[in-house]
Structures are given as C-alpha cells and as structure tokens.
C-alpha cells in the first residue's frame, strides 16, 4: 500500500482545489519558507484522523480552514481526500484492504467543528478510518487518534523530541511499536 494522490480544497493555505501526486517510493517536496510545504503533511495527518488542534499547529480545529489572505476571503469548509495505491506489481490487491478495488479516504470539516469522514465515497465514522491503519505502524490500538502521531510521521523540528523525552515516554514509544 502506498500514497497515490492528495486532493485539498480550503485546507490551510490551499484554498483552491489542489492535487499532489506521489507516483513512486521517493517523493521530495520543495519550496521557499511559508509557501505551504508543512501544510501538506498536516493535511495527511488530518485526513487520517488527527483530532488535536495543537498537533496541527492551531489553537482550535477550525484553524485548518482557509482563514483568508490579503486578497481572498475566508471559506466555510476544508476538504482533504487521500487516494491509496494498493495493487502490487501483478495487479493483485494485497493486504487487509484487498476487499476494496480502490481505496480512498476523505474528511470534510466546517466552522462549527463538525467533521465528516468518507471511505471510498461512503460516509463512515472516524473509527473506521483509524481501524484501517491498525497494526501498520501508523495505527495505534489504544484508542487515541489514529496513528498520526506515530513514529512514521516526523513533524518539522520534532526529530529530537523522541530523544528529549523522559525515559517513561521512550518506553511508551517502544510499546507502540510492539
């Protein structure tokens, strides 16, 4: 399974519908300071179920909705869709999601704080999204938000956080990996 396409609209600085393609195993994202690079990682965590505003560098969850710029007005909702590619070379579907032909998740959120989740276009609960990632190093069994805070996603400036943690926290990280 790997990421194929990320579609954003109204999410942080991506006010216009935008698509990012991840056509292979080694994809780099580049650009000047403040242009929106880290916002694309925030979008990936958000669509996978991240529920803490602080981890999305905001004070409240509606900080992810485009708040306007010098020229543009704020919008009413943010939408992110993530399409996975889970065919192997022979075309066969592998892994726990073999029952789906395509696999895409989507999250839409409005200013009243309500979020709607979709799995292959059908409305579902957040828990259904979290269950998708269970046991893959992204998901975490013990009920917290789906794996967006796992060791597989390193936010800007946070690489040393793992080592600055107290010994009990380092133990908790290892337990997550078990």
């Amino acid at each position: 399974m790997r990421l194929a396409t990320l579609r954003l609209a109204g999410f942080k600085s991506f006010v216009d519908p935008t698509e990012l393609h991840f056509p292979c195993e080694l994809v780099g994202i580049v650009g000047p300071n403040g242009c929106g690079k880290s916002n694309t990682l925030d979008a990936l965590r958000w669509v996978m179920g991240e529920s803490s505003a602080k981890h999305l560098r905001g004070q409240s969850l509606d900080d992810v909705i485009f708040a306007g710029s010098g020229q543009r007005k704020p919008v009413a909702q943010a939408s992110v869709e993530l399409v996975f590619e889970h065919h192997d070379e022979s075309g066969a579907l592998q892994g726990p999601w073999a029952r789906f032909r395509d696999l895409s998740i989507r999250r839409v959120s409005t200013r009243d704080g309500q979020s709607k989740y979709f799995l292959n276009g059908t409305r579902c609960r957040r828990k259904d999204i979290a269950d998708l990632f269970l046991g893959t190093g992204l998901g975490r069994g013990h009920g917290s938000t789906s794996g967006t805070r796992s060791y597989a996603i390193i936010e800007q400036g946070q690489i040393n956080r793992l080592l600055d943690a107290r010994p009990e926290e380092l133990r908790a990280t290892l337990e997550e990996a078990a």
Partner: protein
Amino acid sequence: TRARFRETFEAVNAKLGETFQQLFGGGEARLELQGDAQLAEQDDPTQTKQDRWLDRGVVLLARPPGKKISHIHLLSGGEKSLTAIALVFAIFQLNPAPFCLLDEVDAPLDEANVGRFCAMVQAMSARVQFIFITHNKTTMELARHLIGVTMREAGVSRIVEVDLDAAVKMLDE
C-alpha cells in the same frame, strides 16, 4: 505484555545497533532500562530478572565513532538528530509502516551525514514509501519525483511540477 515489551526492546536494540552504525559510519548505540547500570552495581539478589522489565523507563546511550559512550544530551545538535533518525528507522524496520513522512529532518546535518542518511532512505525505499520536505540539494537528488510548492499569489499555495534544476533554482528564489 511484559514479555512482549521485552521482545520489542531486544529487537529494537539489535536493529538500532545496525542503523546507528550505517548512519554514523561506525560507533555504537544501545537502549538500556533506566537504572540498569546502577542495578548491576548493586547486584541486588532480591530483584529477580523478571521484575526488571516492569515499568522501568528506557534510556538511550550512543557512541559516535572514536568517542566515549555517553548520554544523548551530551551529543551535538547534528549527532542527536542523526541518533533520533537511527532509532526511528530501527523501529520502522521491525514494524514497517507503508509510508514515512519526514519534514526537514536533514536540516541539522552536515554533508557527510546527509549522504549516509540518503543512502539509508534509498535502501529502505524498497519496502517503504518516503515523502520528504527538504531544503538540501543532496536530499533533493534522492527524490525520483519532486513536488514544488509556491505562493505566487501571497497567502495561496499552489503546486508546480519541478525537475531538479528548477527545484535548486527555487532554493535561491
């Protein structure tokens, strides 16, 4: 789940030794249960081996090539980041998530360390998809596909297709 934790601890420890040596080009690193060094000194017969795994925190000791082993807080900024990367990649190799997202983890590294970091990412990309944000030219060259993000209209992000030359030029914009 004590036994499970012990299993993970020992497996990560073994892997950490490998990833650390690859990233630093030598040296060693290991995990220790908090107080292990003290316990060994006390050699307290009442504390059975089994209790050792209960609730004790974990510390990491690292020895860059040619130096003495020390606590991680005595390492330099770059050495610390590289050690943290070694730990993340060790855990990854044990329980590989399908993809790994990295946001400028190469920023504190000098060119020699960036080179070894890229070699490792390249090797792991056979099983894991990497998406990485970087300002470093050497890391950009690792990417087989580059996504450029610009804000030609202030406050509004757009995606532009870039090749390596365009990406490097973007750095100097």
